[in-house]
């Protein structure tokens, strides 16, 4: 954390844990006998309990959305540029909650957790969880925190899908839904990319059918590759070109297979830093939740009908150069909301930065968020 603490930072934060004893029936048919959720909160819940905002994380996110864990932490939470005193999601006004999704590897029950009444970790036996399961698991957290209705639920990418699911499953518990860089379901191309990532992990000789921890190893090569592929799809061709072009690390080609182009070095770095913080089984689970998300499926593929019981007001945001969750996909959501006469505003933010834009402090984007949150009514 920089010294002195920046005025718009939530500062030092401590992750919290909540144990839930009541069994949770999952979409896959398995029932989790109990589970833990790791979460962080910023700001304070007001007396009326109507200023709580739930932030949903994306594929590789966690509960640490803002602030710093240690005095000497170099990096703040993953959405620190957006959450804090005076920031677009202003913690002076709102009580912000972010929970690590079930199946995650950063505190909430997932493949790294020890099975109940056992000494073994779940590993590959952790059931495949869906976006709907996450909402089910987190509504109990809302109850515990005394939040009857979220002032807003907000998230980008997979997190945006979770926002949509919240408003479908608990229409009376969400006043505003901020759905960023999301889609009503993955495209075929997206599922294809996820399968490449999964195969990279599963074909790593150190994967051991998911039991790598018992073998004292990690399928690092596979996870690294998965992240490299993912990372390419999160950025636009233009931004990769602008950042790295065809620049050579040694200034000349060497006629070998070492790192030559700067982009190669960058991707290896991204892959490397990812394996140090993420679990391969969790990565597999999260890509599956993405693939399975399809709220319209049980309504004859009619998204309008899927959203028919929704009550929230929506803000839908896309980014012009996002080709993984393109503006067109956001417009599908907008259209279904319009068909249901729901309150909705939609903005496509001009950005060269691809899907990753949703995590970046783009001026226009943050201005839209700020304007929207200004309208979210809360008791004093």
């Amino acid at each position, binding site marked *: 954390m920089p010294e002195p603490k920046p005025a718009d930072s939530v500062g030092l934060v401590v992750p919290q844990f909540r144990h839930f004893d009541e069994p949770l029936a999952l979409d896959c048919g398995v029932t989790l006998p109990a589970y833990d959720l790791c979460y962080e909160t910023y700001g304070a819940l007001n007396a009326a309990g109507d200023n709580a905002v739930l932030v949903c994380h994306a594929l590789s996110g966690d509960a640490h959305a803002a602030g710093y864990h240690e005095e000497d932490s170099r990096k703040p939470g993953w959405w620190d540029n957006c959450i804090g005193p005076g920031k677009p999601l202003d913690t002076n006004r709102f009580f912000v909650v972010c929970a690590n999704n079930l199946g995650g590897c950063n505190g909430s029950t997932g493949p790294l957790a020890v099975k109940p009444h056992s000494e073994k970790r779940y590993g590959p036996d952790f059931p495949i969880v869906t976006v709907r399961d996450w909402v089910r698991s987190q509504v109990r957290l809302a109850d515990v925190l005394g939040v009857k209705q979220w002032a807003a639920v907000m998230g980008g990418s997979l997190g945006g899908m979770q926002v949509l699911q919240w408003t479908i499953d608990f229409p009376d518990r969400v006043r505003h839904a901020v759905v960023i860089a999301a889609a009503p379901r993955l495209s075929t191309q997206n599922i294809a990319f996820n399968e490449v990532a999964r195969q990279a992990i599963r074909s790593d000789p150190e994967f051991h059918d998911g039991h790598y921890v018992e073998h004292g190893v990690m399928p690092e090569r596979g996870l690294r590759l998965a992240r490299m592929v993912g990372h390419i799809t999160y950025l636009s061709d233009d931004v990769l070109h602008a950042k790295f072009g065809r620049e050579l690390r040694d200034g000349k080609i060497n006629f070998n297979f070492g790192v030559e182009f700067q982009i190669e070095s960058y991707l290896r770095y991204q892959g490397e830093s990812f394996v140090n913080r993420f679990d391969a089984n969790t990565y597999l689970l999260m890509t599956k939740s993405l693939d399975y998300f399809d709220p319209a499926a049980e309504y004859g593929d009619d998204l309008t009908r899927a959203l028919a019981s929704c009550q929230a007001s929506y803000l839908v945001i896309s980014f012009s150069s996002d080709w993984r969750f393109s503006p067109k996909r956001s*417009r599908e959501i907008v259209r279904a909301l*319009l*068909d249901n006469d729901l309150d909705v*505003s*939609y903005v496509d933010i001009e950005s060269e930065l691809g899907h990753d834009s949703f995590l970046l402090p783009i001026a226009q984007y943050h201005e839209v968020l700020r304007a*929207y949150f200004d309208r979210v009514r809360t008791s004093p």
Partner: protein
Amino acid sequence: MNMAGLRAEQALIADWITAGSRVLDLGCGDGQLLAALAEHKGVTGYGIEIDPDNIVSCIKRGVNVIHSDLDAGLSEFDPESFDFVIMTQTLQATRFPHELIDEMLRIGRQSIVTFPNMGHWKCRAQFLLGRMPVTRHLPHTWYDTPNIHMCTLSDFEDLCAEKHLEVLARAAVDSKHRAVPGMGLWPNLLAEIAVYRIRRRG
């Protein structure tokens, strides 16, 4: 209706809008009209806008706004899903005004359209002098103007006749947005801004 801050043209429109109706405002700008209609007439609906700064203003006012290019069409909206589709001072800047009017009357039961009148005497005078008109309400030079499809009241009414559209009401204001005296006699000469309420016949 007293709606402070509205241009006379917008106040005219507000008078024509039935309370409690559903309205779509194409090119809604900063959302002022929709916000006033919501507050004073209990109107619900959406604005469509392309300019990002205007979109932020709409959101600040609590107006539902959809970021969209009118030239890309309105296929998102179902037939007859609005009571009124409004378009103020935008028709002349669209690529296919005639198709947009069709679209407006597909999704709305009635449409209200306003546009700068090229038939105003000041424009005619400049044409007589051999120049493209540049006036207070049409301040752009020919080479740098968003207005690519200018028309006169007569032209517009010809289009309505051709499309079998019924003109339910017509009004005119000047560039200071005051109602124009003498409008009944020489509308095409005196109106700087034309305001029409139209619907499909039958």
